[in-house]
């Protein structure tokens, strides 16, 4: 398998320019689906290769439960720098497993706590909370709930409120939280996938913005709703990864809504920058999948022959 086993670990780097292009050029729906799929494929491949390296690494440890034949020189020769890579893979895989488990656990805890907090609030979907802090959330789970505070509603005109609710409904009906969770888990599995997570968080919001614009029938109203909501809460000290970007996501979303609606294309031609992004992402994911499959099969065959009987 040679260097192929390392390839899926670093191939997510190829997704960085792709994420940038896709989030600005592709229709947000296409971009969200594409980037999530690419992130998941790359994360699975990267973790698989980490697991393969770990098997080789564990086989060298004294007193390990694996068959003795697995520490043969032929097996070790399958992985370049096996003594370093193999051993480094053991803690790396443990870290990945722990990080993913923690993300899943937090996800469930936050969802459960939020639903419990809203228990008893009348209304099937929308929960309007009397609070001086303006915020709005789409809470997945069950039929899903939309949480809005009176402070935010008071700051918006009726049409803008409709835009806000349409935006949150779009999150719930399109089940954006699944994309977000997948992207978060992928970023935990391989830190190189973090830009993809940031991109998915952004494109999911854009997707909901576009749905809201379609429902309300006026792009400018949605843009004003987002802008006003953001201006209502200036200087909220919530350090997010998105804050590191040069121009924050909110002005970019507003600017995108003030521009004409994005065109939905089935699959762009490879000769435009959009096409380059889409095909680049697909190719990166494919190479990643192929090299990890190659490594897995090779190692399986080697270990199969190395195992007595």
């Amino acid at each position, binding site marked *: 398998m040679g260097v192929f086993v390392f390839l899926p670990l670093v191939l997510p780097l190829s997704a960085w320019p792709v994420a940038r292009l896709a989030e600005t050029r592709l229709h947000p729906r296409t971009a969200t689906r594409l980037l999530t799929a690419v992130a998941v494929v790359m994360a699975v491949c990267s973790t698989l290769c980490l697991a393969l390296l770990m098997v080789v690494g564990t086989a060298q440890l004294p007193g390990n439960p694996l068959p003795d034949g697995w520490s043969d020189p032929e097996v070790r020769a399958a992985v370049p720098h096996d003594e370093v890579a193999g051993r480094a893979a053991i803690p790396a895989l443990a870290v990945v497993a722990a990080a993913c488990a923690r*993300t899943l656990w*937090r996800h469930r805890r*936050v969802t459960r706590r*939020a639903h*419990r*907090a*809203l*228990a*008893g609030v*009348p209304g099937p979907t929308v*929960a*309007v*909370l*009397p*609070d001086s*802090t303006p*915020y*709005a*959330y*789409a*809470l*997945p789970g069950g039929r899903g709930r939309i*949480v809005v505070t009176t402070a*935010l509603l008071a700051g918006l005109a009726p049409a803008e409120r409709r835009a*806000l609710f349409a*935006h*949150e409904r779009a999150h719930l009906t399109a089940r*954006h939280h699944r994309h*977000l969770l997948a992207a978060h888990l992928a970023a935990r599995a391989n830190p190189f996938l973090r830009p993809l997570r940031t991109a998915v*968080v952004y494109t*999911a919001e854009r997707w909901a913005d576009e749905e809201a*614009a*379609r429902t309300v*029938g*006026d*792009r*400018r109203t949605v*843009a004003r709703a987002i*802008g*006003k*909501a*953001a*201006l209502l*809460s*200036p*200087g909220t000290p*919530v350090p*997010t990864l*998105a*804050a590191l970007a040069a*121009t*924050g996501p*909110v*002005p970019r979303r*507003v*600017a995108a809504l*003030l*521009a*004409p*609606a994005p065109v939905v294309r089935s699959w762009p031609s490879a000769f435009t920058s959009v096409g380059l992004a889409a095909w680049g992402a697909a190719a990166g994911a494919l190479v990643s999948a192929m090299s990890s499959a190659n490594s897995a099969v090779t190692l399986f065959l080697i270990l199969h022959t190395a195992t007595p009987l």
Partner: protein
Amino acid sequence: MAREDGRARRRGQGELEGQVLGALREADGPVTAAWVQERLGGDLAYTTVVTILTRLLAKDVVSRERHGRSFLWTPTADVARLAALRMRRLLDGERDREAVLASFVTALPPGDEQVLRALLDIPGADAGGTED
């Protein structure tokens, strides 16, 4: 609210707080903890009801007055106010909530405010507008 007896043990504090406050709000005037316990169907211990009422008092959504040897409880806020308090506590406490709750807007970094005001206050020429 669904209230299966089998699930009574598993009910979280938040849900119970909501139910106790809801029961208080259905009362005609100040009531005792025993009244609340009876109102809730009796599958809660008296001490549990008192504990929850005390917790609600700390959150400033109920008030109490001494009446003989016990307290009479009055709601000062509604269920939505209690939910808002709990939601705020959740949002303040969870740093990783972005993974679950897609926020309508994120905090504006300095500089973005000017960009945003410029985008919205200056009408964008003729393009954009209302047509899709």
